[in-house]
């Protein structure tokens, strides 16, 4: 029969249409909210999703996974009296590995000794050029530069971030990437413990 295939196809559309209502009603009957809740958004991006699939940005926002990367930021540890201990030592690996070469760092030398000071004087990232590849965070040996989750950074002018704008506390890092932060802290502590143990052994020998 001519038209059977069209009807068959329309039955799929009809089912999808039907699902948008039954799905909404079933959430209401279960006493749950399908929209504007984390549970609802998570369900909408799971394998069981049916009915309305879209997420109404910006009222609703997709749940970003931990590994999600946007632009880089610099991590500092909070010391007493609000002092910022910048983890960055201005070693320059991030600037070297950066594919579009959007990181530039000024390293300072100690005027007395002439040796480099392990703190950056200036640290710039040109966010307009940054390609969000995550190499800087991946190859930083000091866990000092990490990729942010904050993606609402549209601006009218050129976004060149300086040190002040790049620095974010370690607690913020732990809040966006709990698993990574825990793993890295663990590794750092183990390394320090090993160093301390080595230092203890040395005088004895």
């Amino acid at each position, binding site marked *: 029969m001519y038209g059977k295939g069209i009807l068959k*196809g329309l039955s799929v559309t009809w089912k999808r249409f039907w699902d948008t209502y039954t799905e909404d009603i079933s959430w209401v009957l279960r006493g749950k909210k399908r929209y504007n809740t984390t549970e609802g958004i998570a369900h909408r991006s799971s394998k069981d999703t049916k009915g309305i*699939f879209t997420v109404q940005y910006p009222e609703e926002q997709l749940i970003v996974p931990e590994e*999600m990367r946007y632009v880089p930021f610099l991590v500092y540890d909070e010391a007493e009296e609000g002092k910022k201990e910048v983890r960055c030592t201005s070693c320059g690996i991030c600037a070297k590995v950066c594919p579009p*070469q959007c990181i*530039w760092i000024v390293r300072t030398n100690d005027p007395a000794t002439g040796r480099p000071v392990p703190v950056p004087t200036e640290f*710039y990232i*040109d966010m307009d050029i940054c*390609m969000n590849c995550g190499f800087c965070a991946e190859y930083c040996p000091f866990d000092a530069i990490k*990729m942010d989750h904050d993606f609402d950074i549209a601006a009218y002018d050129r976004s060149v971030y300086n040190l002040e704008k790049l620095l974010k506390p370690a607690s913020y890092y732990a809040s966006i990437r709990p698993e990574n932060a825990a793993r890295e802290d663990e590794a750092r502590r183990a390394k320090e413990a090993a160093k301390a143990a080595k230092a203890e052994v040395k005088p004895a020998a």
Partner: protein
Amino acid sequence: MATPLTATVDLVARFPDSVSADARPGYTGFIVKKENLVEVATAIRDEFGYDLLTAVTGVDYLAENKMEVVYHAYKTTGGTGLIFKVQVDRVDPVEVPSLYDIWAGVDFQEREAYDLLGIRFTGHPDLRRILMWEGYDGHPLRKDWKEPFFEEEAKPFKSRWPDGQHTFAENKNPFRDNLSFPAGFDPEAYQPENEDDLYASLERFRSKGADDALKTDHIVVNMGPHHPSTHGVLRVAITLDGETITGLKPVMGYLHRNHDKIGERNTYLQIIPYTDRLDYFNSMSNNFGYVTTVEKLMKIPVAERAEYIRVIMAELSRIQNHLIFIGMLMNDLGTMYTPSLYAFEERELVLDIFEAVSGARMMCNYFRFGGVVRDIPDFALQKIKDLVYERLPSKTDEMERFLNENEVLVARLNGMHVLNAEDAIRYSVTGPVLRAAGVPYDLRRADPYSIYDRFDFDVAVRYNGDMMDNYLIRFDEIRQSLRILEQALKQMPEGPINSQKPQYQVRVPAGEAYGRIESPKGELGFYVVSNGKPNPYRYHVRPASFVNLQAVEKMCVGAKIADFVALLAMLDIVMGELDR
């Protein structure tokens, strides 16, 4: 499981006077004398059976004062390839005979080599610039060419660290744009040249009616560069006789950024995120192709678990690509978005997985030399299993139920000729279009890379070469990909995800390598020449879209103008890869 044919061909014995083996360390293949190139190439095709010439590219050996053209020929029955090269003195005009008459598939690639390296292919029927515009100053891939705000020969640039004396590139250029002009050129007084060359190239298709017939004229229609159905900024100049297409030329390069040159400035690692931007639907496949090539050069093994992760990602990528193809084909045929949005739902779920493992939905940058960046998190692995075992098979069925029997669609697709096998091979077409024409040529089987020889799957093939087959073969491939995924998920071992220590500058021994993978759109090849430095000496991409587009002329001539959009959709081109 069929083992690939690895017969080595002794070209030197066949042509003792004109062919010699390439003896440079790290290089393979044969060097053919320029005078005998056409003769040798004919023998390679006819006597030795290498019917598919996939990649043609040039290399500028500035120090040796040589220009080299490298050809990669393969058999459509499978097996390893035959590499042959021509070396000519680097004195303008650099001339090499064109192989257009032997393999029509060299068309665009020779034009590209002419455009970017200034190698003139004598006998090429339409040797014009292809990616850069007519009148462009110089040939950018020559090693002595420098861009307007040239900073340094290779990255990392010294100005970034430790003194941070960086200045913005846009401030260095008087026009605040990446432009330089030939001497004596005044941009204010410039009048664009007419495009006689382009239209002249269409002229040869003009039909010659009988003298006493009614005098008719042909119409030239320019489609694009902003036509929505050209999948991006592609312009196509078409000559029409009534409604019938009599000639057609794609004009491209609107999105050109010289990926090859960027690659030669980058370190090996830095290229990986750039490959994401080639075929932006399948960044995982692009990563795959590039890292396999460099691993070939480095001769390093890949961690076992990483091999499986790579296959899983590449196949998920193929599934979402084909779903989008189906959706977008429907858009091109005039359905208003419903099928494409259904397809987008599944793609969205696949992209969620990519985001969870790699950090980005589209620009994944997930592969590293020797493995991958990180292991799949548990919840993402569960998501993959849910999709592969439950959702994707049923949704593929649903899509088929939705569309396949639709009378309007069937009437539109059935019997609408795309390409036959001979033409597809002649024009170096690979991927689903070639397989829909009845040639079971899939690199995962024909020349297995990674661990594809461990999986039990069929090469999807259909025999009519019409639009219906081109459409249905995508469903077949989704099914086969799901089969591979099921096996990969079952077999995936525990273990490290990289065989190497993480390092930001890898050592790549001198030599050349051509790596190719079956990307969802066809053969994606990378040709890398290393001279032992941290940056590749030559880095060339052989994109599937670019090479497949050569056949569009053949496909469309004789068809109606209304069919053009659908025929172009069959090739599944993507501009990021086409224009590079």
